[in-house]
Structure formats: structure tokens, C-alpha cells
């Protein structure tokens, strides 16, 4: 049994990285391993936008991550610096920056890059999806 963390930088929908990461996470868990944390960075943070609205016959990546996180109790952490400049904000950041509303899906949490390093220290493997 090994402990994994994921670093996801792939832009959702324009790139296969997020789909692969989702499948990889499921496979890791099915094989009896542990996922310590999934860290979204760079364009990867765009998947945390609760307003993403793909057509009904396409996989909704935001909801897929949220469902997996709730079912398997996985931490979905979003880099706050990368997120803010791409319009992914929680209530506190929305108020601080005088924005009209929050936009982050509640299954995701804004935090700093330190959470990635901390996850690496607690994991046997870090797998990047870009």
C-alpha cells in the first residue's frame, strides 16, 4: 500500500489531463492505496469553478471531482494565487476583493502552495497531470 498525491495543472475540457487524473485517482483507490491530497495549480484550478456548465452529454469534471471527494473523503485543494487571478474565489476572498459573489464549488478548498509541499512530505509518490 502506498500513499499518493496528485498535482493537476491541466486545463479542464481543452486538455485530457483532468480526465486522466480522475481515472487515475479511482484506480489508485480501487487498488487499495491512499490519496493524501489532490492539488490543483495553474490552469488546473479552473475545474473548481461551480459555474462550469458543460453540455449534458459531456462529463462534468467539477461535479465528478466533488462526488469522488465526498464519497472517498479526499482533499481537493486549490492554489489560492492561481485561483484568484482566474476568478475562482470563496466567500471571504470575494468580500476582500469587492466581488459580487463567490465562484468556488464547495467540494474544493482554497489554500496555499505549502499544502502541496506538505502533501509531498506525507506521500510516497506525487503524480503530475498537465
Amino acid at each position: 500500500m502506498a500513499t499518493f498525491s496528485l498535482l493537476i495543472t491541466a486545463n479542464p475540457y481543452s486538455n485530457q489531463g483532468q480526465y486522466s487524473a480522475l481515472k487515475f485517482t479511482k484506480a489508485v483507490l480501487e487498488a487499495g492505496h491512499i490519496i493524501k491530497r489532490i492539488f490543483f495549480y495553474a490552469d488546473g484550478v479552473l475545474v473548481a469553478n461551480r459555474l462550469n456548465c458543460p453540455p449534458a452529454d459531456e462529463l462534468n469534471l467539477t461535479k465528478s471531482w466533488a462526488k469522488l471527494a465526498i464519497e472517498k473523503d479526499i482533499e481537493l485543494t486549490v492554489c489560492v494565487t492561481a485561483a484568484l487571478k482566474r476568478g475562482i474565489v470563496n466567500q471571504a476572498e470575494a468580500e476582500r476583493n469587492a466581488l459580487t459573489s463567490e465562484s468556488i464549488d464547495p467540494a474544493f478548498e482554497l489554500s496555499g502552495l505549502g499544502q502541496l509541499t506538505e502533501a509531498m512530505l506525507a506521500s510516497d509518490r506525487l503524480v503530475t497531470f498537465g
Partner: protein
Amino acid sequence: MKSVCFIFNKPPYGQESGKELLDICLMCSAFEMPITVIFQGDGVLQLIENQQPDILNIKNYSKTFKALKLYGVETVLIDAAGLEKHQLVTENILNIGEIANSKIIQNVIQNTDFSIML
């Protein structure tokens, strides 16, 4: 403590991955992880001196490479083949590391717990 190596293999500014990778590197240094930084292939272009990305409204992070030592990054390796490909010599690039061949670089990557490339 687990060790980590950062592989810069893309040129600067066309995409932000160089700055993004550098930010992870600085965070790992704050956690006092042993760090090796490698510039490989087109990544050696990150090291060209006197860059002026500000005229393109892009932030200049080139100076931060010079501060890597202050952040506790002891080993910086620059791929000899990458320099040759771009016809660069040591006088053209930031003096922050040592030139290494692919065998040395391969050896470092093999002996590091994590390798990150963006």
C-alpha cells in the same frame, strides 16, 4: 527529509510554467527539503541574462533564479546539450550553476524522491 528536483525544460514567457515551477521550488525550500534544480533542453533559455519581459507586461522572475542559493538550493545543473542546441556559452547565461551532461542529470533524477516538471 524527502528530496526533490525541479526540471525546467521549457522556454520562458510563452507560457507561465517556469514561474509556476519556481514558486513550488521556493515553497519546498521553505520546508527545508533538499532541492536540485535542473535546466534542460529549451529550459536553458530561462537563464539568458538581461531579459526584459516587462515590455510585454509579463513579470520578470529571472532575478529569482539568482537568489536560489539564498533559498538554500545548493545544486543547480545546466544541461550541456541544451546550451549547445541554442548556441549559448557560460558568458550569456546567469552564473548560478554548473554545466552537466545528461548522464549526471539522469543520475540526480534517479536518486531524488520527487521530480517535478511543468
